[in-house]
């Protein structure tokens, strides 16, 4: 079921399944197409295999297998993938060293999140 007011594709990268499902529900309800990955490595593989690329990546930082920092480094090495803006959503305060279009702290303010997402997708 969708409220259908928005367009655009978003890749959500988070190992916390509860957060991923809840965030995906909200975004889908707003009309966005949502793709999911549970860590940086899955996200990279997905991005390399899928076209068109998402309008935005919502990225957690602390994840097993490949964390958000390493994902960003690897993403920026690929000129095509480097163009996709990244919004970091994290539970930790120490986000120094992460290069992203924006950083939001968990628990996320949904209105702020949706305003930020709309800026990159609509």
């Amino acid at each position, binding site marked *: *079921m969708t*409220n259908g007011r928005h367009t655009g594709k978003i890749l959500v990268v988070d*190992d*916390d*399944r*509860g*957060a991923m*499902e*809840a*965030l995906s*529900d*909200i975004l889908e*309800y707003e009309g966005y197409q949502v793709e999911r990955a*549970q860590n940086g490595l*899955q996200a990279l593989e997905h991005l390399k295999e899928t076209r068109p690329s998402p309008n935005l990546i919502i990225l957690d*930082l*602390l*994840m*097993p*297998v490949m*964390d958000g*920092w390493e994902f960003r480094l690897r993403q920026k090495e690929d000129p095509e993938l480097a163009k996709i803006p990244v919004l970091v959503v994290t*539970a*930790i305060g*120490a986000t120094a*060293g992460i290069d992203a279009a924006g950083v939001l*702290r*968990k*628990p*996320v303010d*949904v209105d702020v999140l949706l305003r930020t997402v709309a800026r990159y997708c609509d």
Partner: protein
Amino acid sequence: MPIKQNLEAELKARDEFFSLVAHELRNPLNALHLTLAGLLRAQNATTPLAPDQLASRINRASTQVSRLAKLVDDMLDVSRISAGRFNLQIEEFDAAATLNEAVGRLNDPENPPINLMTLPTLIVECDRTRFAQMASNLIANAIAYGDHKPVTVRLEAAGANFRLEVQDHGKGIAEADQERIFERFVKLEPENSGVRFGLGLWVAREVARALHGDLRVQSQIGAGSKFILELPRKSALASLGRAG
């Protein structure tokens, strides 16, 4: 170590503990917050959720409340263990059946498969709740860090002991970190976040040792990790009914 330095180290450890706890709480809080926010938005919209969608989201919220409750329990365990006020309830039970139940709770189509190898029955004298808690922690870790590959869980008798082995096929743990993962106050280090953090492994090892057993890890980078929990089949604590 001089008293002042000792105090400073204690205070630093306490601060790191609070920082760790705050981080651990934020994830389920975030999931709960998003689930409730989603419900509220849908309810205020012109097209409310179908009853099955509503039920699924309420279930999800309930799962997050359980996660928060478990974290609070872990914190209480840390406090009790640190203060030497930790009780065990020794009873006779079937460790194979208890393990089966724990695996059943973690079986999920979205998780990698769990290959369970166990005797049909393995009667032991131990703390049933604590054994289930340790098994669940180890299997949940193997799922989280196992690179989505199958997890193998083996339960067997080993002389006077019984042994639980939980094997993942993730990226493994560097030798230098293999003891560190059992520490109580592991700092969050972005540059090395492959290292497990949290309270679960510290609590599990402390409980294993209180039961006169042990918990250790064997791991190789690139080849995954095997956590080995070994406990006495017949507890020397049994006659006490409980132990501190």
